[in-house]
């Protein structure tokens, strides 16, 4: 049973518009949620995270929203730039020292930002 799901394999947006990437989870015991960005032929890099006790975290053009009742989070990129074109992975962390600190990843969404 996949505990973290990214239901959209791909997303295409125009430069300057908003990109919204979605992620759903099933385990209410997750403590933190993270987004990673991955370019081809490179490893993923950490982008932004949010605690389960918050509903929003913002960092420049990137904002993550968490809706605990719906077990849903989303990453908003405003404005989108061609350099944002990458695969975005959603991940969830258990509370510290449980499960040996192993994150659970979604399958990723490929974002394409068109000039």
């Amino acid at each position, binding site marked *: 049973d996949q505990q973290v799901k990214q239901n959209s394999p791909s997303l295409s947006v125009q430069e300057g518009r908003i990109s919204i990437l979605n992620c759903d989870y099933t385990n209410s015991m997750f403590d*933190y949620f993270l987004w*990673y960005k991955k370019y081809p032929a490179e*490893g*993923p890099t*950490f982008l932004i995270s949010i605690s389960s006790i918050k509903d929003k975290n913002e960092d420049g053009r990137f904002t993550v929203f968490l809706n605990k009742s719906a077990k849903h989070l989303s990453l908003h990129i405003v404005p989108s730039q061609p350099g944002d074109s990458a695969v975005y992975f959603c991940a969830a962390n258990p509370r*510290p*020292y449980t499960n*040996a*600190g192993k994150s659970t990843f979604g399958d*990723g969404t490929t974002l394409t930002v068109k000039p």
Partner: protein
Amino acid sequence: DVKVTQSSRYLVKRTGEKVFLECVQDMDHENMFWYRQDPGLGLRLIYFSYDVKMKEKGDIPEGYSVSREKKERFSLILESASTNQTSMYLCASASPGQGNYGYTFGSGTRLTVV
């Protein structure tokens, strides 16, 4: 700058060969991980280690083994390489002291088994 270094960016091996993928981190992280990434399948965990000489199977451990003799080094071993092990292999490390820990990934090794 903190780093996770994977020994090779690209490898081509023959079917049946024993293959070693090496990963070194300089952040004194307790946890280290090996993933493979395939199109449409996301990141799949092969093995992870939360301490020296400790290892646990991930979601797809068949055909693989690991070694962690030192805290900074985590090796992935393909005992007898097969074509279905052609993939991008990613090593990561993390320190799970706080809930918002993110993984630091290496640049990946693109392995082709012919």
